[in-house]
């Protein structure tokens, strides 16, 4: 079983995140960058499938040079090798363009199963796997909270409001995972040491046969016109409960015509 896990490096949601005013793209250089949290669940799931079925886990990321940190994290958790697509021309690409790059990189790999996170925390677009499914002509089983592989059949419990849908397709397929699917392992000291020796292949757009003019800000399918900080909320009212907290609270709601 050959499994490819897609990981993305994102600005840490706990630190300050900004758009870059020179070109209205996510300011990645100044940000505190981390592996997209949801992707750790995809890595964990890939390792679990490998442990029961054998095979190899390859990490694939499209991103700037600093994305090697995300790759290291995945390798130290136990992935076998990595492909890092990095090219200055990719900067400012929209999801449609990025999906063409990821699809081209996947076509150079052998895979039975592609795993990815259900969403990334920077754009929260949650469409990448659907775009890839459409481009590669392979089924997408989305929002998995449970995954089973039997022979060439993959089954997923797709998490929904108040329940789940049982999905099934044949392999190869792409599965996106929620954070309810497992508990990602922490890299062990041994894992961290071993990761340093694992192969990381760097590829450019030329290596993938992707035309640099087809990606990047100039040909993006959508564009940010302008952005601004949200106007700060007016100072709120804060009262201490001196036995009358509930009364004040209900009084406020009534004054606002909310009760």
């Amino acid at each position: 079983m050959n499994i490819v896990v897609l990981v993305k490096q994102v600005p840490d949601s706990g630190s300050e995140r900004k758009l870059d005013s020179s070109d209205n793209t996510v300011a990645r250089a100044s940000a505190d960058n981390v592996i997209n949290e949801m992707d750790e669940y995809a890595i964990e799931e890939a390792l679990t499938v490998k442990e029961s079925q054998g095979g190899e886990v390859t990490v694939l990321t499209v991103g700037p040079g600093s994305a090697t940190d995300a790759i290291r994290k995945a390798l130290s958790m136990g992935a076998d090798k990595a492909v890092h697509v990095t090219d200055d021309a990719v900067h400012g690409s929209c999801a449609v363009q990025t999906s063409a790059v990821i699809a081209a990189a996947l076509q150079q790999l052998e895979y039975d199963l592609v795993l990815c996170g259900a969403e990334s925390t920077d754009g929260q677009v949650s469409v990448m796997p659907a775009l890839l499914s459409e481009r590669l002509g392979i089924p997408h089983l989305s929002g998995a909270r449970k995954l089973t592989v039997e022979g060439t059949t993959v089954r997923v419990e797709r998490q929904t409001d108040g329940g789940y849908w049982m999905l099934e397709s044949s392999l190869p397929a792409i599965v996106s995972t929620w954070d309810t699917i497992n508990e990602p392992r922490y890299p062990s000291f041994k894992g961290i040491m071993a990761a340093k020796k694992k192969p990381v292949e760097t590829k450019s757009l030329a290596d993938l046969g992707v035309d640099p003019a087809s990606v990047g800000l100039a040909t993006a399918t959508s564009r940010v016109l302008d952005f601004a900080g949200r106007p700060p909320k007016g100072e709120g009212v804060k009262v201490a409960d001196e036995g009358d907290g509930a009364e004040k609270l209900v009084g406020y709601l009534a004054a606002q015509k909310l009760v």
Partner: protein
Amino acid sequence: MAEVLVLVELNPSGTGVRKTTLEALTAARALGEVSAVVVGAPGTAAGVHDALAEYGAAKVYVAESEEMDAYLVAPKAEVLAQLVGQVSPAAVVIPSSSEGKEVAGRLAIKTGSGFLTDVTEIAADGTATQVAFAGGTVVHSQVTVGTPIYTLRGNSVAPEPSPAAAAEEPVSIALSEQAKQTRVLDRVVETKSSRPELTEAAIVVSGGRGVASAENFSVIEGLADSLGAAVGASRAAVDSGFYPHTFQVGQTGKTVSPQLYIAVGISGAIQHRAGMQTSKTIVAVNKDAEAPIFELADFGVVGDLNTVVPAATQQIAARK
């Protein structure tokens, strides 16, 4: 006048349209004359026709067959792609659920178009408003290639009736093999709730780690029920096993934007704010006067939730 396609999203129960559909119909009117698109099992359109007529659908394209519900998402994208080819609409507007976003992405590739997700407003010239980074940044964007596709975030636009003909037009389509790759074997409902759906509710009452136990979440539920509200939870509350994951509000949970959001025993971490910051009015109850949630709250009570909340519940009930 240009035609605008709106994908109809049904209630999870399968009966009637979701409020998000009415919102999408309302928002789409800024761009042209609205045609609703119904994709589902035979009989689906009959159940939603009146609502679509009331909210401004001049036309209703109906693609009905047993197959439409047997496979995941892809049939909807295929029907929309065919219609985009046939009627060259000015835009396509889709409710921003996880299914809606998948449809949008597939449609973008099929039609060679750009898309914008989770938009909160669409102007007549096609410029969309989006809220980025935990609600802290407001962005204006435009699709620059193909037929603009938008997914509209729930509760961003107030549905407004505008009666129209809702003339039905059947769509005949043979699904491709690719659209049939992911089979839906079963749809399982685990929790049935009499409370409003979290992302649609006008009022949400959420509990955090401060609630301290699963049993004590009855305090949150009590207040919610007195207000006819949905119940939400912070991730800490979910991770501690106090409340099921489907009710998590925040970056890795649901995004809500109700008229009133009441945060109880929640500190207000940035990842929690990401899911509730655009609520119209925010009220907080927390015993720590320094909790960051108070920076966001229109009204805050510094006190113990176990005394303040049950008393407030009683007083609200007494007002009825």
